[in-house]
């Protein structure tokens, strides 16, 4: 008999010591291959108020488009300095940020390639289960052919696009996460 899954529960407001450590939101080291980028944003609730007890996790491929995972057996280079995983708590203004690299494209099952993207999970007090979404880059022409994005209702697609901010040096992308309301981020169900 197949065992039944364990239900999820909220992280509550006191997860910081248990889940956060210095540097978990900096995915790169000096040797890491790839174009440095910064991701930043704000998590807000249905009243537009910042969520100051949220946690955001990232999962992404390396610069070659390869995941640091045994299920990705493609003959592309692994970067030992890059796991592709990041985690950041929000501050009192609901802000989070990551220093990472631009991911390479990864295949879509039998549908060519996906546009470079990051998988994003959101945890917070008041979320009885975490939420999952995807971050794409608004200035990447590949988004117009991405099979996942194309199947998201057109009016809501922009909630998955990180906006490039004017900045000196490395590119900075803003990706706000709206938990509820008219501009609610598209979340996926697994």
């Amino acid at each position, binding site marked *: 008999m197949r065992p039944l899954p*364990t*239900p*999820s529960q909220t992280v509550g407001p006191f997860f910081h010591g248990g889940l956060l450590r210095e540097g978990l939101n900096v995915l790169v080291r000096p040797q890491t291959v790839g174009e440095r980028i910064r991701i930043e944003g704000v998590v807000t609730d249905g009243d537009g108020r910042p969520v100051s007890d949220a946690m955001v996790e990232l999962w992404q491929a390396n610069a070659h488009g390869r995941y640091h995972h045994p*299920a990705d057996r493609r003959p592309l280079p692994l970067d030992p300095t890059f796991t592709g995983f990041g985690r950041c708590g929000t501050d009192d203004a609901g802000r989070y940020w990551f220093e990472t690299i631009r991911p390479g494209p990864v295949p879509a099952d039998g549908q060519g390639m996906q546009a470079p993207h990051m*998988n994003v999970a959101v945890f917070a007090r008041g*979320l009885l289960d975490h*939420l999952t979404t995807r971050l794409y880059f608004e200035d990447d022409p590949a988004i117009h052919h991405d099979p996942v994005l194309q199947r998201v209702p057109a009016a809501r697609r922009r909630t998955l696009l990180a906006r490039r901010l004017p900045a000196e040096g490395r590119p900075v992308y803003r990706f706000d996460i709206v938990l509820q309301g008219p501009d609610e981020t*598209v979340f996926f169900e697994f």
Partner: protein
Amino acid sequence: MTTVTGRGRHATFPPYLYEAYRATVRRAPLGPLLPGPRTLSEVTGPGPAVSALTAEDSDLTRNAGTGGEAIGERIIVTGRVLDDEGNPVPHTLVEIWQANAAGRYRHRRDQHHAPLDPNFLGFGRCLTDAQGVYRFVTVRPGAYPWDNHENAWRPAHIHFSLLGPTWASRLVTQMFFPGDPLLEQDPIFNAVPTDDARERLIARYAHDVTEPAWALGFRFDIVLRGPEATPFEPPEAGAPWR
């Protein structure tokens, strides 16, 4: 009471909107969740990558680094992490956090009038072994009040976070203790939709885990969701909002 189902096919996961737990009201998404894609991005995940980097730190009675021992009823909490076919999930990072024996977290936002224990941080982590087994030594956490409703108290619980083998199997949950009278008034526990599923959040007292003259033992097995293949289709018109 709002009746919206949680994600997944099983009647297992709590809904996002559950009015009895007030914080969900303005944080639950109201638009339809889209069926998740199943690409290489979702069938991979951070578990195997980060696990190798994590030092073991599974004794919460001693990991404060003070040389002293935490105050409270010493307990061993162990169990297996399984996938939903019953296979053990080895090398999974299990992170836990909890209140101390007096019901207080070491956290700047916890203002509960209860003592802090200098020898107790309240968090630890370990990896599952080849058989999927994890094991922590800690103290039984205390109950504590919160402001969700009149005279609300959280039952004693330990928070668990698991970085399983895939992005889709990521899980954060809470472990409760058998026979706790506070369970019946706790909206977080009761948001789980069925008796059977709630039962899976309660550890069992395990006499074989108990160590004589030293610590009581509890067993808490955790089953991670597998790849329930949900076809990626646009939501139908009139599909229920959740």
